[in-house]
């Protein structure tokens, strides 16, 4: 029985291997007609401002580029689903499909890359992925990974925070979901800064899972525990920062204790403008939501050579971040015009916001 089976199995395996290896080779030259190109934005949800803006960016680009096939895939925080949705979509017309992916967790990146390589679809990923994984290691359909320097972001806001409290005193830190890369790196950024400013100590740190409602009671507990020993609040994202802010408001301390966050969501910017927060960092969701699609389109329309031939630093690079503090908050308050991004979408300016290689 076994012996009888093993042979076909082996054959199948061969076939599979051939298919896998052949797929990219076969996909080496194709240039799709505009009408064939399908753009996909794969993200967690659209209830949060950050994600909503990702989605807007994508739609803006599709409209500007005159591509009618634009697909939005939401996984509602279910990593398994994010993978499944991609793979199922590839049932049709994979070769002309471009994925712009905000990974629900680091671990979804690899399977999605594999799916792309196998089917011949094209994919750009954001934020972070498991270590030891690179577009330029034979992943020809993984156009690029646009990393966010979470450590830098964490450090940037931390600097502003310690300066704001006069480089001395105690701060409390709200961490994101610890099983995500940004959460760890941003906190590392804080620790890095604190090494240089021995005057400032972290009184306490907890995770609030990126969540505003979770941050609120934790902040309350800290206020009762440390009282006025808290000179500043560090949050790994704006949502938690705003949760903490409400807790301060409840204690009548809104605006009296400096808060920093990351993401640059409108509310946070408003808070910064009002002086209730002192800073946030924006990775520009509109840009993240569109640039991957732009890259893919440029590749498929043949306006840039196939990624395989790109220099490494163009395949995996850091995205420029904007620190928003009181002095420049005003200009980010309003929603930007699509036109503002047209320049970034030009096939010769795809890397205009790169701050260097991320590997």
């Amino acid at each position, binding site marked *: 029985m076994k012996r009888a089976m093993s042979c076909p199995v082996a054959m199948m395996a061969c076939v599979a291997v051939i298919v896998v290896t052949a797929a990219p080779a076969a996909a080496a030259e194709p240039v799709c007609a505009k009408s064939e190109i399908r753009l996909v934005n794969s993200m967690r949800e659209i*209830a949060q401002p950050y994600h*909503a803006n990702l989605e*807007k960016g994508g739609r803006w680009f599709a409209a500007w580029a005159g591509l009618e096939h634009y697909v939005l895939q939401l996984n509602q925080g279910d990593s398994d689903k994010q993978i499944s949705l991609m793979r199922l979509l590839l049932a049709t017309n994979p070769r002309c499909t471009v994925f712009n992916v905000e990974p629900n967790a680091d671990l979804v990146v690899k399977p999605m890359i594999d799916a792309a390589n196998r089917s011949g679809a094209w994919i750009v990923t954001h934020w972070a992925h498991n270590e030891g994984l690179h577009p330029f290691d034979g992943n020809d359909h993984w156009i690029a990974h646009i990393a966010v320097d979470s450590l830098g972001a964490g450090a940037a806001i931390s600097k502003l925070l310690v300066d704001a409290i006069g480089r001395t005193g105690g701060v409390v830190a709200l961490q994101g979901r610890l099983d995500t890369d940004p959460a760890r790196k941003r906190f590392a950024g804080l620790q890095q800064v604190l090494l240089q400013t021995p005057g400032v100590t972290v009184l306490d740190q907890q995770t609030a899972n990126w*969540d*505003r*409602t979770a941050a609120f009671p934790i902040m309350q507990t800290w206020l*009762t*525990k440390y009282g006025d020993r808290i000179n500043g609040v560090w949050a790994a994202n704006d949502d938690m920062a705003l949760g903490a802010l*409400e807790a301060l408001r409840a204690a009548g301390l809104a605006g009296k204790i400096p808060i920093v966050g990351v993401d640059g969501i409108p509310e946070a910017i408003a808070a910064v403008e009002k002086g209730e927060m002192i800073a946030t960092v924006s990775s520009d969701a509109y840009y993240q939501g569109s640039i991957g699609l732009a890259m893919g389109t440029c590749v498929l329309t043949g306006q840039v050579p196939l990624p395989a031939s790109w220099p490494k630093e163009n395949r995996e690079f850091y995205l420029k971040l904007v620190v928003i503090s009181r002095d420049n908050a005003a200009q980010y308050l309003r929603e930007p015009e699509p036109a503002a991004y047209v320049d970034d979408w030009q096939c010769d300016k795809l890397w205009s916001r790169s701050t260097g290689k991320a590997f």
Partner: protein
Amino acid sequence: MMPADHQGPVGSTPAATAQELRPWTPLLALIVLCLGFGLAEPGFATSENLWTIADRSAIPLILAVGTTFVILQGSIDLSIEGVMATSSLTFAMSVFNSRNGLDLGVFGLGLATLVGAGLGLLSGLLTTCLRVPSFMVTLGVWSTSAGIALLLSGDQPPLIKDPMMRALGLGRSLAVPNLFLVAVAVVLLGYVLQSYTRFGRYSMVIGGGEDLARLLGLPVDRYKVLAFVFAGFLGGLAGALESARIGLGHVDVGGGQMFATITAVVIGGTSLGGGRGGVLQSAVGTLTLAILTDGMVFVGINPYAQKAVQGALILLTALGATWPLRHRLRIVK
């Protein structure tokens, strides 16, 4: 949700059964926890921190009261999170907010609770009319209402600008958090309903022996629907209050509340099989959880160990309650 065979232990001594009906272990656990944390962290026992705990437990208390009636009847309500989300959005968009011109104030609160009650009504009718287990129905209603919330939320969650509502959510009256006052009121309401109205007593009866209740011609279905409506109503209230606190209508406003609430109710000693327990027990359970969470933040325990500790606590309280009742013929599903 689970079928619990109410066949008492063979030759059960009254003592045992009495114990089964009012286990003191939950209250004990609560006290032990307080003492434990109090000794571990002097700052814990301060009145200020107790008010923080009160504030933290307000929303869970409201949810627990509603869920208790459903569970007393032997059903289950998984839809809490969805209901909260929908009502949160309804609330945020009907009081003075950043999205539209509406400014209904208190009526916004009413509207939100009505929406909650409506969803509860839906669950109730579906279970009783289609005779689908509440487990499946409320699972579906959860997803559906979450979807509705998503639609309402659009791309910019509506901010609540109504100062009165913010005050309700954040303010305190004589050092007591307003939300806690609301929660206490709800618990009292729940207690009165449970022990002084047919709704409450029949919930007990239905949980104790639904087919007997039907045989005796009680309008079982009506009271089942009522329980879901009440749970939905309080779910809606909780959703609205939570968003009054955080200042916006938010889809994830109830994140994690479903398991938390059921856990609290169970820790309190209300049987998932129905017919045993009550509002006060659930309140105790909720406070236990709140103190546990707060205390662990206070002594700085790794947040992930917290989940484990909660689990262990469930087991211990259950052990304490059921160990004396073990019997060779006691059927436990």
